């Protein structure tokens, strides 16, 4: 690996600079991210992210799969938010084929996507807190995530990679009584959120570790292509659920929390608020859940007309975009491209960590909430 260091110390330890490898086997790089840090004492002078350790060529794979089969592969990208990945993909294909999705399916998709957001944020909260040393929050957050996984399991039989959506609708309707369970989960989750906040929000050490760490201005965040909570943390109101509503989001009432300082603490608060907004959306969707079919009119063999489209949705991590090209002849996409939010957010890490201490690097990796399966694809 070439490190862009003008003066990498040749000695083992130098009073001036130290180059250390954080990862790919490091407990808090959330997988196999490798960050090459150039340090002055403990202060980070420069960071270089090395990714691709679990690159599986998902895009290339998808170009050789049936349009229907790809749903399965999208599960494997952001594997902690598989339903959202499914949703983005099937909607992109629906857009390409101009398929209308029944209202009930759109409602259920919204419920699934929001439950997925809660699960994904739970994982983020747990690992982020763990990185900063609050190990109990990890266990608490995972405990609640289990409940979401149970709900998904009841819906589609899988706990991690759901394969839970189909082009044109959903593979199956929710089991009877499921909505009641979701409701009681929502009630429970609200109480648990208060627990988390008791442990963290006003904790002085937590404040010290996150306030004014990794501050980024709105202009810079936009320029760096940050998306999702990192972008909103800087006060940019951009949530695709509002801006380009997909599924059934335009029918629900919810708020987009915005940060003011653009630091790690703001990003933390935003995600905590997103938990609550997600619960709110889920409740509205369940209240208004219409009866009706769950599959639209879809040909048995998917063969979209030749053309291309880009469709983006708001995943828990940010803008998840699918760029699909169909040649109109084969049953595979000619080009399948994912715009992974983690990938684009990770790009900002270099900017965020500069000038901070080693301990902040792990806090910042946590705050941008990456999943390496999605970064590397």
């Amino acid at each position, binding site marked *: 690996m070439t490190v862009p260091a003008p003066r990498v110390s040749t000695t083992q330890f130098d009073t001036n600079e130290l180059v250390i490898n954080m990862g790919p086997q490091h407990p808090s790089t959330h997988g196999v991210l490798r960050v090459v840090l150039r340090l002055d004492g403990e202060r980070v002078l420069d960071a270089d992210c090395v990714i691709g350790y679990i690159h599986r060529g998902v895009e*290339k794979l998808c170009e050789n799969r049936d349009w229907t089969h790809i749903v399965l592969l999208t599960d494997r990208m952001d594997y902690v938010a598989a339903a959202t990945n499914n949703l983005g993909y099937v909607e992109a294909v629906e857009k390409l084929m*101009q398929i*209308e999705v029944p209202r009930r399916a759109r409602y259920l998709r919204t419920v699934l996507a929001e439950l997925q957001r809660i699960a994904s944020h739970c994982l983020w909260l747990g690992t982020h807190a763990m990185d900063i040393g609050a190990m109990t929050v990890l266990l608490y957050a995972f405990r609640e995530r289990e409940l979401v996984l149970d709900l998904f399991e009841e819906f589609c039989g899988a706990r991690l990679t759901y394969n839970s959506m189909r082009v044109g609708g959903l593979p199956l309707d929710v089991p009877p009584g499921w909505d009641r369970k979701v409701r009681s989960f929502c009630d429970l989750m609200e109480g648990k959120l208060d627990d988390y906040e008791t442990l963290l929000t006003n904790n002085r050490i937590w404040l010290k570790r996150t306030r004014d760490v990794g501050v980024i201005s709105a202009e810079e965040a936009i*320029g760096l*292509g*940050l998306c999702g909570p990192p972008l909103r943390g800087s006060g940019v109101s951009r949530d695709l659920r509002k801006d380009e509503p997909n599924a059934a989001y335009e029918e629900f009432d919810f708020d987009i929390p915005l940060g003011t300082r653009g630091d790690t603490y703001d990003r933390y608060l935003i995600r905590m608020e997103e938990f609550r907004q997600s619960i709110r959306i889920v409740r509205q969707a369940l209240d208004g859940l219409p009866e009706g079919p769950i599959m639209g009119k879809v040909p048995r063999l998917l063969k979209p007309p030749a053309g291309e*489209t*880009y469709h983006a949705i708001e995943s828990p991590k940010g803008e998840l975009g699918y760029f699909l090209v169909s040649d109109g002849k084969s049953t595979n996409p000619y080009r399948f491209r994912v715009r992974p939010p983690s990938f684009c957010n990770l790009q900002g890490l270099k900017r965020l960590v500069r000038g901070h201490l080693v301990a902040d690097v792990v806090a910042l990796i946590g705050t941008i909430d990456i999943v390496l399966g999605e970064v590397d694809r």
Partner: protein
Amino acid sequence: MTDDTKPGADAPGEAGGAVSEPAAGPAPDPPAAADAAPPKAAPPKPEPAAAARPKSEPAPPAKPAAAEAARQAPTAASAKPAAPEKPAKPAAAAKPAAAAKPRPKPKPKPPPEPPKGPPDPPPPEGMESPAAVAAVQEALPDAIEALSYWVGDWTLIVRRERLLDVLELLKTHEAAAFDYCSDVTATDWPPRERRFDLIYCLYSTRLRHRVRVKVRVGEDDAVESVTGLWPAANWLEREVFDQFGVNIVNHPDRRRILMPDEWQGHPQRKDYPLEGPGELLMENPQDWLRVRNLPDEAGTDREPGPDTEIE
């Protein structure tokens, strides 16, 4: 704006869904569109060209495809003689026949599909292009090769030489204000002369609309990096360089990103073997050695695809 195209895709009649946010999007539309009315005449010109392209293309592709098939065949053939010596390594036991058997299989591979180009359908007659597109049409009419509209997405197809001008205009123009670079990616259409489509997905956080800019580049054409306009393009362009080998120049940090630095070839190209170079190379250890000894390309020189290397 993109919003009003949305209904076509998903929920007809709910175009106004984005009301919760400043409705700046649709507002500036009519005047700008009115401005754009005169240059509206321009699109028809590129249209025929765009339409002609896909038609003219089917012919040449057949050749390379055939050539490729021919190329594949010798590989398999050359591998066969090597086979008798090889069995010692993988399966020391009495499986030379079995080992040889799977090899013929790749030969009757389905014949390569007829190659195609992107349709890039022009906007329907009488449709007004949005203000941002109109602005470019007005300011840089010569830069635009074609204009495309499909399922609600506008695509500007621009000349490679004028790419930066167009993008800069799109970023700075009042009616465009594309300050956010969502995605940079590419598509490979091997038989075509300029085989790569380089696609920039832009978004405006202020006006909340999207546009795609597409540029067609050949294998050796240099494309200016857009990192100066959007730092976000840094990694995205690196990925395009890594996966397609598009010659992006003036990039601050042009290295491979997903593949290892010493990787040969560009996996997302259509002529890259699906199973990766590994198995092909394994057939003949000599090839493996040859590839090993190639100069390290490590983000400096582009290498032709590995298939040509092996031959």
